[in-house]
């Protein structure tokens, strides 16, 4: 295959990855890894490098739009970034000692979990009673609703912080944003309304991915010939996805994509189990 053909096919694939990633809320990185490994037979280490770039591009692009609306809780994001960046650095370290087949199996499992999380019932309620720690850290805030600002408070800050560290480890190990784990920490543990948790999670993904991307770049995991179509394709797809989201109700699409992603997850686990990586 010539470089031109490779670029054109990959740009199209990355565009779809960005589109699916933004419509399901899973992020572009999650689709880039199976695309590169299963379709193009690229070594999973190059795929992880490319996925990190996709995650950063996706997060920075989308976060800038959400911040405009004033939903993102910047203080909460900053505080939890301590957990995710420590986790990301640890994950990038662990990656050196983890066989690629094991990484593929872990990736498949996280993918299954993420697909399930996308379809779960979301936390809509805003807490009126928060914990002391949350007040001390100034994490309680409000976001614009249809009838004026809605205030919310947080609890279980320690529990959320721990899950965030795990999310960081997964992000550093696999190159994905692990948005599903981040939302689990904020939504289920800290009881934050899902509008705030999804946008704040997205806001944090860029910084988390950057913390391990600096390691992977120096390890030589980032190849320019792969990076070029992936970065442009994913960004284009994410942009289209964000436009579509305001016009259509993505619930049906979400279910279709989640079923598709479940198949991909089993494929990754099977191939990892068969030592195909």
């Amino acid at each position, binding site marked *: 295959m010539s470089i031109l*053909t490779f670029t054109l096919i990959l740009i199209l694939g990355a565009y779809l990855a960005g589109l699916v990633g933004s419509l399901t809320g899973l992020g572009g990185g999650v689709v880039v890894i199976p695309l590169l490994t299963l379709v193009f037979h690229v070594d999973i280490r190059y795929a992880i490098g490319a996925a990190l770039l996709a995650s*950063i*591009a996706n997060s920075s692009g989308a976060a800038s739009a959400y911040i405009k609306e004033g939903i993102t809780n910047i203080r909460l994001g900053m505080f939890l970034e301590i957990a995710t960046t420590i986790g990301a650095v640890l994950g990038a370290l662990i990656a050196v000692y983890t066989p690629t087949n094991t990484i593929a199996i872990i990736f498949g499992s996280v993918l299954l979990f993420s697909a399930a999380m996308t379809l779960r019932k979301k936390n809509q309620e805003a807490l009126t009673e928060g914990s002391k720690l949350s007040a001390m850290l100034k994490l309680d805030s409000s976001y614009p609703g249809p009838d004026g600002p809605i205030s919310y408070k947080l609890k279980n800050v320690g529990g959320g912080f721990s899950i965030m560290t795990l999310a960081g480890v997964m992000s550093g190990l696999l190159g994905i944003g692990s948005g599903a784990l981040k939302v689990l920490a904020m939504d289920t543990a800290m009881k934050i309304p899902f509008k705030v948790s999804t946008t704040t999670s997205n806001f944090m993904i860029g910084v988390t991915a950057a913390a391990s991307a600096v*390691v992977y*770049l120096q390890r030589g995991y980032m190849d320019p010939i792969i990076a070029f179509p992936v970065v442009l394709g994913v960004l284009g797809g994410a942009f289209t996805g964000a436009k579509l989201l305001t016009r259509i109700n993505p619930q049906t699409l979400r279910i279709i994509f989640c079923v598709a992603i479940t198949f991909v997850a089993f494929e990754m686990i099977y191939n990892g189990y068969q030592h195909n990586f």
Partner: protein
Amino acid sequence: MDTNITSKKIDMKKTDTVILQERDVEKTVGKLLRTGVFTACIVVLIGGILLLSQYGTCAMPDYRVFKGEGSEFITFDGIIVGLFTFKAMAIIQFGVLLLIITPILRIAFSLFAFAVEKDRLYVVITMIVLGIILFSTFSGLKI
């Protein structure tokens, strides 16, 4: 009665400006992220077009086996040297570098913003995050 109303008005104005400032900071953060991603994109595109015009018909490298990138693509100096000699792949890699730096710059800007707001707690929290990323960059974790 009159004085009460005016003092209330002043109070409202005060909170208005505080909220306005915070929203300004958030808007700047958003603009910073957008500009970073956009610039990185343009640089990657320029490098990519150059790459295709020079090597488009060449066979693609075998990515089934992991070899890792050479020093010209993994060190700052290497990328900059390649950039100034107008090498297509180095230009793409410079765009990649810009993309990675964008969220880190966002942290640095937040540090400045929290300092202006005199929010000491969050100045410390932001410094911890920035410290972890700088440690990750310069500690040679690459192995």
